[in-house]
């Protein structure tokens, strides 16, 4: 496989996977008006749930307490449910908060979860993490596993986009929009604001959990280092890049962001010195690209044009 198709495959795989997060964030923030700065927590919950459900029971030097050794699909379902459960747990006490207060609280929850995973070694081996996570044998139709997982991520993204689109196009979606635009007015016409916000928050967490499970299958490893606030920021940047309030924008923004990362690393360096220079230059190039994109906003313009057409 040549370099370009390999890069395209990586962009589809990770771009689709993280697009699920961006789409959910888009629903929560751009439509529901909730600033969630703890996206990574729901992602981590899904990944850990998947790993714990599918992992063999602990033995030897393992420090985790539960490994259910169940098939991958059970883990996948558990991942969605776990993310929803975590959303209920965190959404219930916090969703009455507005704007930046909610942002701070969700951020704090995500940090707490990370700290819990690091320090409570009984959950997932602490910093060691759970390795060799079960992944379904994807050798179907003679396709390579990478292609199959990229397809799986793409399908998950399409399913999420479709579900959210249907949801938002319905009267329910208009009620959500009404609350974001003017809470008092929405309340005046009889919409239960607290309940609607809570529902949107919980529903949008489920795909994030599924994405977490898929991520665990792809990396075959879950450990707290993979689930830091960086993931949250990544998703937020993708959302800003692609422009808010459009499903296509969320997807294009994420794909573009993963695409940049890959494009910057596309050249195969044959000497250590060259790789070292590239590694140091990467942040600078990324920064310049961000400035360029935020100045001209090509992706959000593209997404908006599509929407208008």
């Amino acid at each position: 496989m040549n370099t370009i198709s390999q890069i395209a495959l990586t962009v589809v795989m990770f771009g689709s996977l993280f697009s699920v997060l961006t789409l959910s964030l888009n629903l929560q923030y751009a439509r529901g008006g909730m600033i969630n700065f703890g996206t990574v927590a729901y992602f981590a919950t899904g990944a850990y749930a998947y790993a714990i459900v599918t992992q063999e029971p602990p033995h030897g030097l393992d420090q985790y307490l539960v490994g259910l050794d169940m098939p991958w699909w059970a883990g996948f379902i558990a991942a969605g449910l776990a993310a929803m459960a975590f959303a209920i747990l965190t959404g219930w006490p916090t969703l009455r908060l507005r704007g930046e207060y909610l942002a701070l609280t969700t951020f704090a929850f995500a940090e707490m979860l990370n700290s819990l995973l690091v320090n409570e070694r009984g959950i997932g081996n602490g910093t060691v993490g759970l390795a060799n996570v079960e992944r379904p044998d994807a050798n179907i139709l003679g396709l390579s596993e990478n292609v199959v997982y990229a397809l799986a991520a793409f399908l998950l993204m399409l399913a999420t986009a479709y579900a959210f689109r249907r949801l938002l196009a319905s009267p329910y979606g208009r009620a959500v929009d009404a609350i974001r635009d003017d809470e008092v007015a929405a309340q005046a016409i009889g919409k239960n604001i607290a309940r609607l916000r809570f529902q949107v928050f919980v529903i949008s967490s489920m795909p994030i959990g599924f994405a977490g499970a898929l991520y665990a299958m792809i990396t075959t490893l879950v450990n707290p280092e993979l689930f830091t606030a960086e993931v949250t920021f990544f998703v937020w940047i993708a959302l800003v890049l692609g422009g808010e309030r459009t499903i296509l924008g969320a997807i294009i923004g994420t794909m573009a962001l993963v695409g940049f990362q890959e494009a910057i690393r596309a050249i195969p360096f044959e000497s250590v010195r060259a790789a070292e220079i590239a590694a140091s230059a990467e942040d600078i190039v990324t920064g310049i690209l961000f400035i360029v994109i935020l100045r001209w906003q090509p992706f959000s313009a593209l997404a908006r044009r599509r929407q208008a057409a």
Partner: protein
Amino acid sequence: MKNAMSVKGALLKSTLLAGAVAASTVAARGEDVTIGVLVPLTGELGEFGKIVAGAVELGVDEVNAAGGTKCGNLRTVVADTGGNPEVGIREATKMIESEGAVAVVGPTSGVMVALVDLAKRTKTVIMSPYAGTITLNELGGDYVYRTVSSDLGDGAASGLWLTDKGYKRVAFMVQNEESTISPAQVAREKLESSGIELTDYVVYNPGQPSYQAELVSVLAHEPDAIYLAGGQESGVTVIKEATAGGFEGEWLFTADLAVPEIFDAVGAQYLNDRAYVEFADSDSSLPEYKAFEALYKEKTGGEPGPFASNSFDMVNLIALSLESADSCTGEGINGVIRAVAEGGEAVGSFAAGKEAIAAGKDINYEGASGPLTMDESGTPDGAYSIQQARDGKWENVKFYPASAFE
């Protein structure tokens, strides 16, 4: 609109450029055999990654100078992981799928663990000169190898040193990371069985601006020595704060702090004569090591850093495996790599090994880092050095060969 066009134009140009670069590398591949060098060049372990990549490059040059393997000259593609497993998977996939790498060398513990499945699936050998993680004690062995012993050995060596040194009271400061906790547990067991009093066993989380809260109890008990298993960032802060807090005992650091930069960061005067460091090391009295050291000095002008000899051995093992395997693939390497490092005529360099293989002999590669006979998990037995801080430098004071732990 004009602006939009120029952005598009630039994007198009860069795409074409990337395409041209990709095409040229495919063309250049020819008869070379590619090895991926996947190391952290940035991040907390960046210093080690540079040493490893440098030693790998040296090894590759030597192999190619000796006429290359029968599969052709070795060619490297280098990528930075920053220590992140996800980046590691992406880069390794690229190396294997689009660069045709038969082996990927140099990943750190976390990345290595994440690559196990990929290695077995794509039948590509992955090998690390410093991934001591105990997880590999279970997962390693097939397509997954290392030229360094397990972290558990580091713990045993530290425990042995603390006991030999005759300390009565020792405190442990351990960074909450796998690579530091597992050896600390082994060292702790050794201390407890030798009757040394463990005044504190503190597991701390890295990335804090200060560790004074953790140090309060440690310093209050006035231990003879502090065993500090920490990374470079947290380690420096802990040492500074303990010194400022009036700690006058001795130190034993683990491998992450075995770099010369530590003297600048902390201040050499606070470390001289009272700080020791333990790390997996090669027996510097071995002729193979001396040859490597001389070569390293000649080519780079400096002393070989930690894990340099392990990295050099890694390249030679792969090159010799290619030389004696039936096919120029990862599968070929995987089939013979153990045999190359065990039983047969002892050889100390690629050139000697190549000659012996050509003469139809079975070879046993004796590396610069010591014997490389691998156990079931693809891990060799380890030897360890203790160095002492003297005049702003680390100097050898004690060497524990593998036989010391039997």
